[in-house]
């Protein structure tokens, strides 16, 4: 996985991309899942 800074619907956010083809997820959401 790697974090990617990208613009979606006008806003920039950090997203997580997965090598296995799983859907991208907001880094915020990914961290919330790990807290």
């Amino acid at each position, binding site marked *: *996985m*790697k*974090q990617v*800074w990208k*613009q*979606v*619907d*006008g*806003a*920039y*956010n*950090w997203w997580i991309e997965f090598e296995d083809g799983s859907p991208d997820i907001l*880094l*915020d959401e*990914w*961290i*919330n*899942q*790990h*807290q």
Partner: protein
Amino acid sequence: MNLWLLIKYFTAAYRTICKLCGIGYLIDANATPWGPANSGTIATNGTVTLGTALSSIYSNGIWLYFPAGAVSAGAAGWYWAVMSSTTVGIVYTSQTSGIPVTGSNSPYTGVTSAITGPSINVPGLAMGINGTLRFSSSYSCNNTAGSKAVVATFGGSSSISISMTTAVGGAINGLIQNKGSYSSQRYSNLTTTASTGIGGFLSIDTMVNQILAYRFQNAVATDVLIQENYFVELFPRG
């Protein structure tokens, strides 16, 4: 061989030499300010008016986090703004476009959920089993009763944090060190004043890429919290 592969191989070789010799190197550093936008309005022409004054006039630009709808049809997230005063500036469609966004012209409420600011990739295997990450960052905020919190997360887990209320600034200075294993760490806080999270343990697999991320959270939508800069170094050790 293309240039990208050459750079990749050189970087890998350099990291190996650093690990063997215990040489530290910079992973990332930036002095661009980031922070949640406090409650205000973005006018149709892209002019943002914040309800609470920032600590400085960020005329070189600042990443501000706005809730969904502050920009017309815009998602929640980070927008580039260039300020002309501590409360007024222009929000742009990107850092380089020079094109203002179309604001909703309706008052928005500043975000009080945790949001991720700068995010730094720590390459897998780069730390070594006794390697250390050293990271510093500094903050400006306003003097109120509300908590202005920052947490440095590693691999999604919280490490050092700071929570400011009446203090108009603060810092996070910390270490995350592998404990003789790629998947066991100690984190320690080098700045204990006004901070929580003096130290603790993590179990993050540093054999693969991991993310050091700064998360911000205001308890009160009208409060000011700005990260002024950050600096992250890696001291590899086998």
